[in-house]
């Protein structure tokens, strides 16, 4: 039995190698989009490539928001088996590019005009050393409020324009006996919310300096201290069981009307849609108070590896299809994010999506499109995770005061740099 098995697998592998030598019309794609909605969105791309005669070799590895996939990718690269492309985030692309394992899509980029249509902020991660190494798929934005409209109407609230408005609104909800703020007490959720708080408290200039440039003076400043104060204030509006809650359960609280609002990235919209709720009538999407006009983004990219020559044609086809306007629209309508190029028509998007597209365009032109530090687009992973540590320890009481939080933040970021 065992012998047969071994011989069988040996033969199978032999066939696989033989097939590789001839067949190059396939793309191998490592990704972690495995839930129904995500898979449906990516299937559009698979379909587009199939029309051009390219087979899709799926390599899905879910877990930890891409952590498991990145671990698998590292092993694959160590073994010398590069996939055609892999879903990647921000600094990871640059790390792999620096290691010299990424391909070069500059020709395609020129032909397709990516330089002009893709926001400069994204190009920082997709272009390394003057070469295009990745194709951005979408732009997520994290400075959103997701509000249950029925609760909002009940308490007679209106869109909060400033942080103080927001606090007043939360007070109203509290008085009405609703949990004001739905928060999942996991470090990335807390830090994602804090991204918005910093932008709201210090304004665009300050956010960029502190959260993207990691400027020491800004990190130490009173504005940062004020940001922690504001975070502490927000945390007083969460329910006692928030700790450890998954983000989608927090969203469910808003959907059910148990809570008024959640501060979360635009992927939360998928949960509302899955519950058959529509924007404007069942739920509202506002920018985090005091951050209108700016967008804190993160983006999924398809990193393109330096594959053998006979596989490059398939890679180019994949990259071209990824950034085609039709795919960008179709994919992002399903995914809840907005297209990674600013010239895609917004006709198919819902109200929140339309606002997202308009905001992205405005922020791109006005220079207020910033990487999210919590989502790994503000600084390399070592710094981003050190940041999440500090925020989470502050929220859960290991760090007791805003002064201490500022000191710890500076220390942690210095240490990780």
């Amino acid at each position: 039995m065992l012998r047969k098995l071994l011989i069988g697998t040996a033969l199978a592998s032999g066939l696989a190698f033989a097939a590789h030598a001839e067949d190059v019309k396939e793309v191998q794609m490592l990704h972690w989009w495995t839930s129904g909605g995500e898979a449906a969105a990516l299937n559009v791309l698979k379909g587009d490539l199939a029309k051009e005669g390219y087979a899709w070799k799926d390599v899905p590895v879910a877990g930890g928001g891409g952590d498991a996939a990145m671990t698998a990718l590292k092993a694959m690269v160590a073994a010398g088996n590069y996939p055609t492309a892999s879903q990647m985030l921000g600094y990871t692309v640059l790390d792999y590019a620096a290691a010299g394992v990424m391909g070069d899509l500059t020709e395609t980029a020129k032909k397709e005009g990516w330089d002009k249509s893709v926001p400069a902020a994204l190009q920082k991660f997709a272009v390394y050393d003057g070469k295009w190494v990745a194709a951005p798929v979408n732009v997520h934005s994290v400075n959103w409020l997701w509000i249950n409209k029925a609760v909002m109407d009940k308490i007679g609230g209106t869109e909060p324009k400033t942080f103080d408005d927001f606090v007043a609104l939360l007070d109203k909800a509290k008085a009405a006996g609703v949990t004001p703020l739905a928060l999942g007490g996991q470090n990335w959720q807390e830090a994602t919310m804090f991204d918005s708080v910093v932008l709201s408290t210090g304004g665009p200039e300050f956010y960029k300096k502190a959260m993207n440039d990691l400027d020491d003076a800004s990190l130490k400043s009173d504005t940062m201290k004020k940001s922690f104060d504001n975070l502490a204030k927000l945390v007083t509006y969460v329910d006692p069981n928030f700790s450890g809650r998954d983000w989608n359960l927090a969203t469910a609280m808003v959907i059910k009307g148990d809570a008024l609002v959640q501060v979360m990235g635009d992927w939360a919209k998928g949960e509302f849609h899955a519950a058959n709720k529509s924007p404007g009538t069942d739920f509202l999407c506002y920018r985090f108070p005091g951050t209108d006009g700016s967008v804190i983004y993160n983006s999924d990219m398809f990193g393109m590896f330096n594959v053998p020559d006979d596989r490059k044609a398939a890679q180019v086809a994949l990259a071209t299809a990824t950034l085609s306007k039709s795919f960008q629209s179709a994919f992002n309508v399903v995914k809840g994010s907005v297209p990674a190029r600013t010239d895609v028509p917004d006709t198919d998007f819902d109200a929140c999506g339309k606002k997202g597209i308009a905001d992205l365009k405005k922020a791109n032109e006005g220079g207020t499109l910033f990487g999210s530090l919590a989502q790994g687009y503000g600084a390399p992973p070592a710094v981003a995770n050190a940041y999440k540590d500090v925020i989470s320890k502050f929220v859960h009481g290991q760090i007791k005061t805003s002064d201490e939080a500022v000191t710890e933040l500076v220390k942690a970021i210095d240490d990780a740099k």
Partner: protein
Amino acid sequence: MSAVTTPTRQASGGMNAKIVNRIVIYGLLALFALFYLMPLFVMLVTSFKTMDEIQNGNMLALPKAPTFEPWLKAWGETCVGLTCAGIKGYFWNSIKMVVPAVLISTMLGALNGYVLTKWRFRGATLVFGLMLFACFIPFQSVLLPMATILGSLGRFGVTLQNTVGTSFGLGNPTVNLVFVHVVYGIGFTTLFFRNYYEAFPTELVKAAQVDGASFFQIFRRIMLPNSMPIFVVTVIYQFTNIWNDFLFASAYAGTGDAMPMTVALNNVVNTSTGVVEYNVNMAAAMIAALPTLLVYVLAGRYFVRGLMAGAVKG
């Protein structure tokens, strides 16, 4: 027989004490059974609920309108990556990796245990100690060097393929996984068998040697027939660990064709920014565990008392 429920003293104490004794024993066993079953209860009730009910109700409440839908979906419809055909297709991938890995590592462990206890040589204890400590190496820190080695073996396989005509399985993801699991499994299998054989009467082996029995004859005729309980334990342990391994499976399985069940299950369950279907997840987890549970039940039947008592009497 080792089970002692009626020591001589109690025999004079009468039937009452014995009955109370039994009631206490069964009561305790039942109580612990409840503790172990509780999370299974949560999973079962969840798997029969609709998503609406999960979002709105108590996690421990019985389903109001039980539905089989999540089970059917987990079996044949849910998306594992872009392929939405359920998890049913991944059993074979796991089985063809797990069965050889378990058999090889268990047999090696039995042989090693036999050598280390019955054919002692100078330094045997040190060898055992070194193999035992191997159990503690964190898999995260072997992931990359092992990948590099497997990658080179794979390239060597391609060369062989081109020159000799067969790669001998080198570079095949399933063979790679079998190899990795054998390498990191023999520490445990050797430990189990060595410690079991430690208590095995050496006189039997000596006697057989005097009779002129060879190394393998003694192993086959004397050791193996008396090793049923420890075989069961080892197989349970190895089967479970290899079946449930995610780290190696996700890193070395290559393209999706060889994807083992655990990776598939993980893809169903884990999502970062997508909608989570708890009922399908729970059903999928239970379906994915079925082969392991089957092994527990089947192997458990061989949890019989060893034949040693009889053997000593000869």
